[in-house]
């Protein structure tokens, strides 16, 4: 079996506790992530699920090294990127891309779509950046007519396609997608999911897909990591975890999803915690 693309060992992140009152000496620290260990295999989708405050976005930001972990290590393709300085990271940035939740706030409203996609390419010294940007537009099925438009002229789904185009234009090996469909209508969400599936297959991508929606993860992911309060409570192959969740939290997350089927009993159970 091939080496995993990303290996995470005993990863921890703590931040100064801003809610702790003023005191002498160092502020107490708040542990956001604790003792996370897992592998992300090459080519495929890992789903990261958890409720708000579980640390899933923080974990994602550590994986693409927008945050520096305070414990443990992260190996990307065998390189230890845990504490790499920004200058050293530059070489890896092309490989580690991210798509954000809210495309409206992550796309500069004063730039055209072409400039938004070509910008990062130029930053990395890619030649013919604009041609490559147009190719990326094709790949996300937006068409080249969108090149000269501005973000506000696009629908939510189209903006999210631009976010994806920006990420794939650099030809990365790893993409982190953090709740990228949570602001979209179901019909648009279904289109974005179809696009991700197509890109993962065609471009041999490795994708980490963060979501609070277990149903989405069941569809997209090959493996799953379930986070609760900064710790992994369950991980494994997607079908195994769904068929027989070993942690009650995973089972509760699954049971809480209202499937579009009639079921009177779903609302009758007493208030369980």
């Amino acid at each position, binding site marked *: 079996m091939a080496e995993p693309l990303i290996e995470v060992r005993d990863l921890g992140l703590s931040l100064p506790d801003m809610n702790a009152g003023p005191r002498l000496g160092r502020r107490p620290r708040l542990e956001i992530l604790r003792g996370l260990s897992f592998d992300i295999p090459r080519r495929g989708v890992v789903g990261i699920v958890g409720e708000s405050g579980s640390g899933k976005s923080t974990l994602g930001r550590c994986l693409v090294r927008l945050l520096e972990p305070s414990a443990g290590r992260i190996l990307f393709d065998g390189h230890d990127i845990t504490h790499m300085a920004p200058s050293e990271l530059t070489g890896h940035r092309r490989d580690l891309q991210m798509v954000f939740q809210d495309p409206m706030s992550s796309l500069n409203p004063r730039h055209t779509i072409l400039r938004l996609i070509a910008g990062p390419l130029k930053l990395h010294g890619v030649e013919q950046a604009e041609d490559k940007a147009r190719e990326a537009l094709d790949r996300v099925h937006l068409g080249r007519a969108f090149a000269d438009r501005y973000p506000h002229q696009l629908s939510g789904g189209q903006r999210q396609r631009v976010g994806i185009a920006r990420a794939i234009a650099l030809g990365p090996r790893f993409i982190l997608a953090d709740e990228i469909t949570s602001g979209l*209508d179901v019909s648009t969400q*279904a289109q974005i999911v179809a696009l991700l599936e197509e890109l993962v297959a065609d471009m041999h991508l490795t994708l980490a897909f963060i979501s609070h929606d277990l149903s989405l993860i069941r569809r997209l992911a090959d493996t799953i990591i379930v986070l609760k309060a900064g710790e992994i409570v369950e991980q494994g192959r997607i079908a195994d975890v769904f068929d027989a969740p070993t942690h009650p939290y995973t089972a509760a997350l699954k049971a809480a999803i209202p499937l579009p089927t009639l079921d009177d009993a779903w609302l009758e159970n007493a*208030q369980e915690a």
Partner: protein
Amino acid sequence: MTGILEIDSLSVRIGPRGPRILQDVSLSVAPGEIHGLIGESGAGKSMIGKTVAGLLPRGLNVSEGSVRFDGKELTALPRRRLRKLVGERIAIIPQDPLTALNPSRRIAGQITDRLVHTLGWDRRRALLRAEETLNEVSIRNPAQTLRSYPHELSGGMRQRVLIAAAFAAAPDFIIADEPTTALDVTVQRQILQLIRAMQARHGTAMLFVTHDMGVVAKLCTRATVLYAGKVVETGTAEHLFGPNPHPYTEALIGATPRYDRPEDSLRPVPERVIEALRAEQEATHG
């Protein structure tokens, strides 16, 4: 059938001659029913609730049709009379509990305001009622919660407080506008269970706005599906989730992600369904 709320051929326009954001909407909510309003963003689902509550944004006006609540025509009422009627008999459960609560006031005042100022209760009776209702929504320490500020409560607790506030005055009708959209799934389930239990206990009719077909299936007696400001269909839950719903309803259900059959869900709404629906709406509404 006579509903407690009867909306007939309602159109709402932007400005006197502007575009219609609701067109020819008819629906009826029976006493004791939870009636879902479902559609994608811009379909007009929240606007229907706002029209009933007299909360249409400035510049939007009812241009045609009627809204009858318990036999009274609401569209003909002067604004102040409408406000009074709504204040006395209709309650709203809003989407975002954090913006709906005043951060600088304790919970007590925010629940009792309506009882004291609109219904004319004396303060002591209102406070007792507030405590009683908090108890009813399974808040463990009502007295302490009444003294709290919104930021001291979790999202789920705040939504419980708003549900208590809505039921405190024993309204005849409740408009719930996506009340669980901002919540985590496990909290959402508890809140839906609570809404269902409270609604059943008090027999309150309810208009429940949501974009989630799953929520409609689990909660609603009947629902109205909207697209582009027009009604696609109204039906019982058994019809909508049965073998023969409108193709657009079926497409919305098919687009919903499902962990129990991952490959046979998340289907993009087919282009032909939208085209056929547009043609159908064109033919019906002009």
